[in-house]
């Protein structure tokens, strides 16, 4: 067939692009670009009809080639041939820009990088193509999400600059993390343009560090795809970051060219995939891709879709009756504000909840009834939001000619502290506490409070009205309210209409629960498969309870949580979500079991604000006089937010950015505001206490306070993290340097031995080095390497990661991927300062362990292989080690087999140090001795602290995490936060192993035959093969048995060895009644707000636990006194039973 037209259509995840090219003149005769709003088939149909009308496209005259992520399923319907999008783009680039060596195409959900590499033998260029995996992090989707959040118009976005705009740290890895960071920055008053520029930076860095797989984008670089083509700032971000990379990697540009000449976006950048599809068509025979017309597609749009759907489940409701009955039971009656008479004096408490996505305010009467409430989607400024809401509430009351008096103010939510300071509120309470108070206020005996907010999911378990336990989502706000809201918005559905639309779905797709980014990918996949928006919305609602109970709470058996569930939080206003939750909870209860009572909080959106108001009421009832500045004064608050270089904190080396809120207080503030200064006040929003200092004097005071807290609450983990790198000054055991020999080998050895004092060895501060550094440093030092010549990389920081991780090709756990950045630090910072001869990072195969009867003592394979991935990263393009004259040593080592280890070290170091076998043996001995010395010292220090806790009957925290979690950059400073709150901190690797202590904790079980030894874990964990997991299980046992310790489990995202022991660790601790908390999925992103929320909640929980413990001990003492009195009365010599009882009571191990 000879066709006069060739059409290329790119059906992407968010847009459809098409070009029609006349074959005779090889010229584009028609083209268009439209967003499809998830209606790919419908928009394609529209395109085709317009192409037929406007460009004379018709069957018999046109050949059609379809590309794009949504094109595959649709191509055959119109007779077109499908071309994979990366191939289409590369064909277009090869024809239009043969000079280009790299292409970056950012799509809605996809990101692609193509690198054209010259072959050494001068053959055709080789293409290296990469495409994002299932995760849509670092794509246009992330930008879309934030744009919609910040309410930026298309025009604004197009002109948004990057160059010259102040940048802040934003995670680009995934939209959820980015959103969390943006939220937090927004609350600190960072303007939208800075937020967007920071986001562009994050997206570019994410792609450079993951999608390039460590390859360098060589000039020229072509920027394609919607975001690159349309947003000025994106292009500028690429130019800046790529040029920095070129500079670092010494990539030379053609003479006379600047980086901005070499990195550019063509005018029709959005059409390249479609043009590539046409190019593909030109190479195909004339029978390929013959256009069939729109009939089949129209039929598919009408009715053909159902047959293609896989992986479906029935909709949220089966029948109309079911829906009506559900609505009857679960629709909260519309709130009617209280009605007042003219002249009424309304005494009330104000509760404010400044959440992540909205701000809520309630007025609570003295008797606890809600008098009025107000809600506002956050505009990013919590103070302005609050002023608006207060005015709204006041209007409500005063419009009835009544007078409003605020007796007390409580704040909660992300911005609780800012509001507390600005309004001089009476209480600022953490959200979990606020929600618990609210549930307890309304319901007699709630068992489980399920709060689903915009950003956070909280599950609070109660027993007899006391909080028994809680769960919060970690850094990932998987599938929460805001996600649902944003998805609905993306589909053009108002949040209020979500449920109505979702209930119309007969079937819905099955989403995999968990990470919101993967849910986002699922949405795209389902759209591609033909699912409609109502079905997708229903499916998303259905997955939420799985996210709540399986992902966040990790409770597969929901029935174990109790029988009265309270659903609260703004998301519960969405009845589709409630229906899914109700079905899920009911489904967990067996037929014979008592059925659950599931109640939607009457003010679910404002439950937190109610809780805050209740706290204010409680304080008032205790006689506290409110410090609130008053409603009028609140309206007159004027403030200026400053966040720039001038506000940067220089009180420590972190140099964090701070926000200053300079508030002009109304002078005529009412008399009870004596607590507040009149005139201008400054509220400083900083990431730590030191940052809140205004001058050196206040800093000194803060420091003194902190020092005092620190010295009373030692952080053993921090001590370990510092002392592990210190030289243990081992005895030098090296051979005497032989006199000149006649053998070449001897002379070589002499030279190497003489060089030992000069040899400089770099060691990255990562992984198992946090345990075993003394072994290796002592080995080297004992052979004559000077301690000052053993150079460690810096401690992990975010800046280090950002500057040094772009060579990585994979995305493993943070402790592993940070290795590349530590090497970067060693090579490009330390080595540049003073030459390094070699870098040493062994591949830890088997570790040591004090435990007995374990099956094996393996190191984690991710950690073990990390030295190999580092080598790959630094040798793939050019050998960076060789270029810098650095020897890279990474022997495989087995630390638990001393003979084998000696052999491995000998093989590795002999060519560098000229070590003899005997010398090696002695050095190994010195190494083990030093390591054991370090272990002994740190455990001794821990024992002193533990004894202090026992004496003072206080609580300490055991961090159940690996040795590398001692790294402050990896544990995100969470342990320090606990220390500041008054809890000494230990870790699984630093717990004391003194016999008397172990006997006290485990002796009875050993004697009863449950275990063979205090260090035996076979009673709880059968498959004890991984060294650190085994240790974690043992430390959990230790913590469970010690009355003064509670457990906080740390685990990194993608930690394969931790995952299998999650439940066993939890069971061990919780069965003993010991509090257990966790920070799982730790990654490079530091979710400050989420960490703060969790730490504060844990602190609240531990305070009540300590009170309970104190009262329990008090009652035990009373019982003991009573028993003694009784015994004295009964007989002069106490019976054996009484004696045993007294002994039991005396033992601290049993009091908990």
């Amino acid at each position, binding site marked *: 067939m000879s066709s006069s037209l060739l059409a290329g259509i790119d059906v992407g995840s968010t847009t459809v692009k098409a070009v029609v090219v006349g074959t005779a003149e090889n010229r584009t005769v028609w083209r268009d670009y439209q967003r499809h709003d998830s209606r790919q088939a419908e928009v394609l149909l529209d395109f085709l009809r317009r192409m037929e009308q406007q460009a004379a496209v018709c069957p018999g005259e046109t050949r059609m080639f379809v590309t794009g*992520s949504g094109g*595959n399923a649709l191509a055959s319907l119109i007779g077109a041939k499908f*071309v*994979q*999008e990366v*191939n289409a783009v590369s064909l277009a680039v090869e024809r239009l820009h043969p000079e280009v060596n790299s292409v970056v195409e950012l799509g809605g959900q996809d990101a692609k990088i193509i690198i054209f590499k010259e072959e050494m033998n001068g053959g055709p260029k080789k*293409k290296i*193509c990469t*495409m994002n*995996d*299932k995760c849509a992090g670092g794509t246009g989707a992330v930008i879309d999400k934030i744009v919609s959040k910040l309410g930026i118009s298309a025009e604004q976005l197009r002109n948004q600059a990057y160059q010259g705009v102040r940048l802040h740290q934003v995670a680009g890895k995934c939209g959820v993390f980015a959103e969390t960071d943006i939220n937090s920055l927004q609350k600190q008053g960072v303007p939208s343009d800075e937020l967007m520029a920071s986001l562009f930076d994050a997206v570019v860095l994410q792609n450079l560090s993951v999608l390039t*797989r460590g390859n360098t984008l060589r000039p020229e670089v072509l920027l394609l795809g919607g975001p690159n083509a349309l947003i000025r700032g994106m292009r500028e971000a690429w130019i800046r970051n790529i040029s920095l990379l070129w500079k670092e990697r010494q990539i030379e540009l053609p003479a006379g060219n600047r980086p901005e000449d070499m990195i550019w976006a063509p005018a029709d950048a959005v059409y390249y995939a479609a043009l590539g599809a046409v190019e593909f068509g030109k190479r195909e025979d004339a029978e390929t891709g013959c256009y069939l017309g729109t009939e089949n597609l129209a039929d598919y749009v009408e009715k053909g879709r159902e047959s293609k759907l896989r*992986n479906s489940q029935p909709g949220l409701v089966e029948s109309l009756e079911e829906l009506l009955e559900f609505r009857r039971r679960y629709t909260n009656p519309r709130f009617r504000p209280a009605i007042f008479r003219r002249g009424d004096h309304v005494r009330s408490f104000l509760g404010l909840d400044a959440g992540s996505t909205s701000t809520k305010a309630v007025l609570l009467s003295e008797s606890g009834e809600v008098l009025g409430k107000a809600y506002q989607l956050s505009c990013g400024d919590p103070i302005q939001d609050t002023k608006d809401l207060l005015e709204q509430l006041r209007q409500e009351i005063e419009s009835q000619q009544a007078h409003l008096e605020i007796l007390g103010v409580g704040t909660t939510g992300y911005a609780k502290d800012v509001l507390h300071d600005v309004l001089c509120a009476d209480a600022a309470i953490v959200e979990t506490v606020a929600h618990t108070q609210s549930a307890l206020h309304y319901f007699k005996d709630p068992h489980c409070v399920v709060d689903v907010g915009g950003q956070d999911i909280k599950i609070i378990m109660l027993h007899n009205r006391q909080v028994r336990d809680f769960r919060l989502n970690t850094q990932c706000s998987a599938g929460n309210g805001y996600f649902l809201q944003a998805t609905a918005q993306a589909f053009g559905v108002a949040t209020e209409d979500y449920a109505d639309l979702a209930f119309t779905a007969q079937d819905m797709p*099955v989403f*995999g629960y*968990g990470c919101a980014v993967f849910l986002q990918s699922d949405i795209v*996949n389902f759209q591609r*498969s033909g699912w409609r928006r109502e079905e997708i919305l229903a499916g998303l609602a259905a997955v939420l309870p799985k996210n709540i109970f*399986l992902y966040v709470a*990790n409770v*597969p058996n929901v029935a174990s949580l109790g029988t009265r569930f309270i659903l609260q939080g703004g998301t519960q206003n969405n009845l589709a979500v409630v229906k899914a939750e109700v079905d899920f909870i009911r489904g967990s209860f067996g037929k014979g079991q008592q059925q659950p009572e599931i109640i939607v909080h009457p003010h679910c959106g404002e439950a937190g604000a109610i809780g805050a108001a209740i706290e204010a009421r409680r304080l008032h009832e205790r006689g506290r006089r409110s410090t609130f500045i008053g409603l009028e004064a609140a309206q007159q608050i004027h403030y200026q937010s400053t966040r720039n270089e001038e506000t940067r904190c220089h009180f420590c080396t972190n140099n964090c950015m701070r926000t200053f809120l300079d508030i002009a207080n109304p002078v005529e503030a009412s008399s009870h505001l004596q607590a507040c200064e009149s005139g201008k006040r400054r509220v400083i929003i900083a990431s730590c206490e030191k940052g809140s200092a205004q001058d050196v004097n206040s800093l000194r005071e803060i420091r003194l306070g902190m020092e005092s807290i620190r010295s009373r609450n030692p952080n053993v983990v921090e001590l370990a993290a510092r002392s592990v790198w210190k030289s243990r000054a081992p005895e030098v055991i090296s051979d005497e340097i032989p006199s000149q020999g006649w053998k070449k080998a001897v002379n070589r050895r002499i030279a190497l031995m003489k060089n030992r004092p000069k040899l400089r060895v770099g060691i990255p501060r990562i992984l198992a080095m946090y345990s075993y550094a003394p072994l290796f440093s002592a080995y080297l030092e004992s052979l004559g390497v000077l301690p000052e010549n053993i150079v460690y990389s810096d401690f992990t920081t975010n800046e280090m990661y950002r500057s040094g991780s772009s060579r*990585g*090709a*994979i995305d*493993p756990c943070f402790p592993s991927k940070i290795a590349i950045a530590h090497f970067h630090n060693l090579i490009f910072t330390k080595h540049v300062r003073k030459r390094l001869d070699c870098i040493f990072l062994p591949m830890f195969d088997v570790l040591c362990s004090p435990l007995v009867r374990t*099956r094996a003592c*393996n*190191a984690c*394979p*991710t950690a*073990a*292989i*990390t030295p*190999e*991935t580092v080598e*790959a*990263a630094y*040798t*793939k393009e050019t050998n960076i080690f060789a270029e810098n004259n650095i020897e890279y040593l990474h022997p495989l080592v087995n630390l638990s087999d001393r003979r084998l280890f000696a052999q491995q070290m000998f093989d590795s170091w002999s060519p560098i140090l000229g070590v003899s076998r005997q010398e090696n043996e002695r050095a190994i001995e010195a190494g083990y001795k030093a390591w054991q010395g370090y272990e002994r010292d740190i455990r001794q220090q821990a024992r002193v602290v533990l004894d202090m806790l026992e004496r003072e009957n206080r609580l300490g925290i055991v961090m159940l995490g690996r040795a590398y979690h001692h790294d402050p950059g990896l544990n995100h400073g969470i342990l320090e936060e606990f220390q500041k709150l008054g809890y000494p901190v230990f870790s699984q690797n630093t717990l004391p192993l003194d016999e008397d202590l172990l006997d006290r904790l485990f002796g009875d*079980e050993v004697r009863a035959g*449950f275990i063979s030894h205090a260090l035996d874990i076979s009673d*709880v*964990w*059968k*498959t004890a093969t*991984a060294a650190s997991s085994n240790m974690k299980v043992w430390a959990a*046992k230790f913590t*469970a048995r010690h009355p003064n310790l509670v457990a906080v489990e740390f685990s990194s995202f993608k930690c*394969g*060895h931790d*995952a*299998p022991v*999650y439940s*066993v660790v939890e069971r061990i601790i919780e*069965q*003993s009644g010991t509090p257990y908390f966790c920070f799982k999925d730790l990654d490079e992103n530091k979710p400050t707000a989420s960490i703060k929320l969790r730490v504060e909640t844990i602190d609240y929980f531990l305070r009540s636990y300590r009170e309970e413990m104190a009262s329990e001990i008090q009652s035990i003492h009373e*019982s003991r006194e009573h028993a003694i009195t009784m015994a004295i009365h009964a007989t002069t010599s106490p019976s054996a*039973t009484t004696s045993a*009882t007294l002994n039991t009571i005396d033992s601290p191990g*049993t009091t908990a």
Partner: protein
Amino acid sequence: MNLPPFQHFRRPTERPFTAEERDRVTILFGGFTWKHEKLIQAVFQGCGYHCQPLPNPTLSSYHLGRSFGNPGQCNPTYFTVGNLIQYLRELEARGLSRQQILDSYVFFTAGSCGPCRFGMYESEYRMALENAGFGGFRVLLFSQNDGIKAQSGEPGLKFGVDLGMGSMNALNLGDITNVIAYNLRPYEVVPGETDLAIAWVVDELSGLLRDRPVFEILERSPHWFATRLAGHKKWKDILNMLGKVREHLYGKPYAESLRRCRARLGEVEVDRLRVKPIVKVMGEFWAQLTEGDGNFNMFSFLEQEGAQVSVDSIGNWVMYLLHQAKANAEGRKKVDAPYPDAAWWDFKKQLKNELRFQKKWTPLTLGERIWARQYQRAAEGLGKIAAPLLPQRELARLAHPFYHSLARGGEGHLEVGKNVYYSVNNLCHMVLALKPFACMPSSQSDGVQSAVVNHFPEIIFLPIETAGEGEINAHSRVQMALTEAKSKAWAEFDRSVTVSRLKAEDIRDYVADHPELRSPLYRVPRHPGVAGVAANFVLHVARKMKNAQRKFTLQTAVQR
């Protein structure tokens, strides 16, 4: 006052599977292809066990597994345990009580002590089963005696010669039939013919493994010898064992059955002139083997997209394990030697050192040889369609500069070794590595591969992370790489046609006139540097045609 003693958490006591239960307990297992599973089932049945493979795990198994397991596991675990729970629920739906299920079924799986978390999954299975309401369901482990051996009395599952060697044969036959299926299907002239033939072959081989007469020395030896031997238990057992081994290695029924299978396979007509890129699929053990949702239905997708899939064999994995054990023994030779510092002239000490080493090394070598021999025998018996097992030492050598060959966990250096081996030897056009999301060794291996592909620029390598979601994205990425591989295959084919100085139509006509060239049993030699089936076939047929032409010219000349 007496305080009740506090009960700390302890793991539940495991219930043993005893010999006395054998007749009424069904052993459930899974995780292989249906071919392997059917053959293994036959072996177990032949040894007197009730045995049932689980259905192929689907996406719903995965979702179920996730809801009952710990978060953050790799997806083979979720698929496997979800599949088991789904099956047990089906049993329940059929009317069995939970107690009946606990009493009548056990799950048999592989275990490990290696550094990969796979070694810990036994506990994970038990926990997920408990969460799903099947607490106390028995999980038996292959590699670990405690799981199989009853805590008291005779174990329910006993590894004798028949079960052990039968399983070896079943795995080998499963491997070979699997490879044959993927080698023939893309070229079959009648669609579906390969699957029919493979189904027939697997049925035939299952029958062989199930109904094979069990060797018993007392039954096979003359009466006079049998009566004497009956009284000597030790000798009887030794001779019985040797007889069984011989039967498994050289048994006649085995050879006859293979011949029948070969004949059936020979009936499938193939068209080798179809140009298809060969895609070597490798990666994590389960992800590269499963045929379904567990790897995004990758095999069928690749075939549908016009590729020939080169699947991996379980045999290669077994050989890897044996090789690693040998390599470790070699690495420890000096360390374990009783006289590490023996001088070279001190033969006595050297001999003792060597004996210590050989004690470890020889049985492993023997195991390797037996396995390889049986594989080879079966491959030849089934028409030499399947490729031989991979040379493990060579793989380790190729991988070592990038990935330490003694590093343990998961596939170790295998992925890197295979990538280099297949590419530099031109055995495929593209390498596709399937790795479960967050698989530790496989992810690290992928990190290393980024350097490998830079050092061997001719490699088309694509890693795909498999999970429960993201199938369409994964398929799209495969299409991306496959387009390159197709170009490579076509370029190679065009080169072959050019070199042969013939037209493709001439070759096609010649093949039409020679039916033997359309038989799958016809052996086409591989030409150096040529990977594709069609390209090799063209070169071979061209040579044949030229030879025939030369012969014809010669004959004509002679006749003149």
